[in-house]
């Protein structure tokens, strides 16, 4: 595992672009505890390189979701250091955090779309990473170029024909693909997905994972995803990281790991 020296970025200073092979995620000695509960994470170290596809696996309660949420401070980190896309995550102010988040596409297990609105409007919302005001609130008010880009994102996930459909009329798989299109609208440098296949049937789950992996490859973006489905972890990643005991308990290239080995990892951890 690579060790990257931490370098503080001055507040407001733009982070340098990340070159291929450089670490986009670098975590050192990360610990986390919720209230008086047990330690979810205890001195975790981790590096993830630019352009790689990484699956994070582990039994329930091993802190997979907590880890990826701490990367963008959707959950406040405990002690330790997190460096993401060249930024020291823990020291960022509100504006810096907003800037960092705009560079990271996050796909949620529950899709987190506004279900009463159309697929197109939900995708238009993705532009709020770089624009603000009424033109980003609904496709009705969005400028022509924003609508066109949103339509293009929907085309890339195969849902252009559902652009004006309300999200609550779509299937689970379609709904998750709308969430992926919203993430694309952000033009992210790094994609983080928290069990994007969990709430879907096997076929839809596989389609969503294949879409995410293909899009990440197309854009040479880094993809970090959490999955409970071992076949997805093996098929759609280049590296598998297993969490256990609050630390990295498994770290192997995906092609060297078998489903049986992962099953043993789950059961023994």
């Amino acid at each position, binding site marked *: 595992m690579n060790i990257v020296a931490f370098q503080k970025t001055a507040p407001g200073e733009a982070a340098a672009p990340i070159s291929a092979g450089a670490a986009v995620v670098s975590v050192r000695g990360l610990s986390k505890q919720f209230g008086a509960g047990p330690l979810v994470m205890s001195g975790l170290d981790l590096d993830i390189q630019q352009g790689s596809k990484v699956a994070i696996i582990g039994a329930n309660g091993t802190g997979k979701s907590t880890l990826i949420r701490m990367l963008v401070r959707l959950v406040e980190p405990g002690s330790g250091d997190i460096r993401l896309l060249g930024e020291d995550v823990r020291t960022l102010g509100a504006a810096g955090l907003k800037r960092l*988040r705009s560079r990271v*596409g996050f796909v949620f297990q529950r899709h*987190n*779309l506004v279900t009463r609105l159309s697929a197109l409007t939900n995708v238009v*919302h993705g532009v709020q990473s770089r624009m603000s005001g009424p033109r980003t*609130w609904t496709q009705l008010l969005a400028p022509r170029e924003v609508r066109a880009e949103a339509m293009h994102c929907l085309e890339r996930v195969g849902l252009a024909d559902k652009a004006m459909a309300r999200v609550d009329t779509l299937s689970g798989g379609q709904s998750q693909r709308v969430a992926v299109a*919203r993430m694309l609208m952000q033009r992210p440098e790094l994609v983080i997905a928290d069990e994007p296949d969990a709430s879907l049937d096997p076929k839809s789950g596989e389609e969503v994972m294949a879409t995410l992996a293909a899009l990440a490859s197309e854009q040479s973006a880094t993809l970090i995803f959490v999955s409970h489905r071992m076949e997805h972890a093996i098929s759609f990643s280049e590296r598998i990281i297993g969490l256990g005991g609050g630390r990295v308990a498994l770290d192997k290239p995906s092609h060297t790991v078998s489903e049986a080995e992962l099953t043993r990892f789950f059961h023994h951890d």
Partner: protein
Amino acid sequence: MTDVMKPKGGHLPPRIEHANPVAFTLTFAVAAFIIWSLTTAGPSIDQLARGLPNIGNILSRMFPPDLERLDRILWSLFQTFQMAIAGCAIGLVLSVPLGILAAEGLSPHPAIRTAARSLIAVFRTVPDLVWALIFVIAVGLGSPAGVLAIAIDVMGFAARFFAEAMEETDKGPREALSALGANKLGMIMSAVLPAASPSMIATSLYCLEKATRASVVLGLVGAGGIGVELKVAFDLFAYQTAATIILVILMLVIAVEQTGGWLRRKII
């Protein structure tokens, strides 16, 4: 009954568990206060016996309704409805930002939230007729006072329900927008308001029904509307004209309620 079905004579639980003398005293005191209020403030049997024939007498003098001034009454009713619409529109528009300021998780600061909640409580607690009296003194007799009184009354009701509707929306879309770097206003306008809109529309339609009813009586204190016509008709003992006014008010209120119900079913 067979032996199998016969209840066994086991230990029965007490009818009242953990008897609380304070709760018992309070219940007794409340019951006593209700009875006392009924006997002192409520109508006596004698008053009811004398009053019922009087009501019958007034009702008999109301029929047939006098339609001679129907055009003027309808015009006055239309103006009353305009007053309700204007007051309701102002109140609802102002209720949205006030509701946001009062909503947990959306308000910029706990102190602002407390201030917004307190303001809403004041608006709600003071009756619309009192607001009308205040605005009659402030802006003079006529419909502007009525419009302002309705707006304040609507805000006291709608802002509270808007805040609750916004607080109850799914946090997921908000989190997603926060995760992509959206600002708070973007989150509210893109995720919170669309999700809260069914409840907010239902509240708005109810406010319109409430405002229509209120607009009728505000005229009694000089705040414009058909209430003035009704008061004058009663003052002049023109009960047949009063009957016409009451009937057209009834038709307006029913029409607004029916339309509101239909819109609720259609939109939500």
